[in-house]
């Protein structure tokens, strides 16, 4: 089981899923219409490290974060 958290303005409660990689996560999240814009513009971190490929394997207990566009300062 992995946990997915939606940071900043996405405003969605965390969810837990039984999946093995980010491809599976992508398929599941694409079914949620409220996330379509966020999937296009958000970066992804696994256990607080940025990830650039959907092939990234996931392990039990991993934390996945979606990071939408930023603007500090």
């Amino acid at each position, binding site marked *: 089981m992995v946990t997915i958290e939606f940071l900043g303005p996405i405003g969605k409660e965390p969810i837990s899923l039984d999946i093995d990689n*980010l491809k599976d996560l992508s398929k599941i999240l694409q079914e949620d219409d409220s996330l379509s814009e966020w999937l296009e513009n958000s970066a992804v971190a696994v256990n607080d490290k940025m990830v650039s490929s959907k092939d990234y394997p996931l392990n039990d207990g991993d934390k996945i974060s979606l990071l939408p566009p*930023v*603007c*500090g*300062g």
Partner: protein
Amino acid sequence: MECLELYDGNLDVHTITNRWYDEFKNSNYGAIVTFVGVVRDENGISGLSFDIYEPILKDWFEKWQQKAKEKNAIVLMAHSKGDVPNHTTSYISAVCSPKRRVALELIDEFVEDFKASAPIWKYDLIDGKRVYAKDRSTKLQGAGVLQ
């Protein structure tokens, strides 16, 4: 001393910048360059509001500290969480360096990368509500991987 400081609400600029100066003026840094951001009154906002994802912010900051160290410099930063009224401050950064040129160049690069890479989300405060500053926000590197 922690070089990255996060506070609820607007920053006490005098206290923070004086503390940095007092801390580092005896460390033989010939140049201390401070950048202070001030919230402007524009577009009908009463202020700004911020969310921060601290684990990745700390990693990002640590990479900058290493980069500064290679030039015998250090970086300092303070940022607000939550609401920050107009005409107050949400962000201070500084570079302390033995050399003026290094300090001036590093503060420029540091602030620019901060805007593009630090995991902080900005909202306008309009009629007491938070409105995501979508148009002023920048996609992080690797955005869209789940598309």
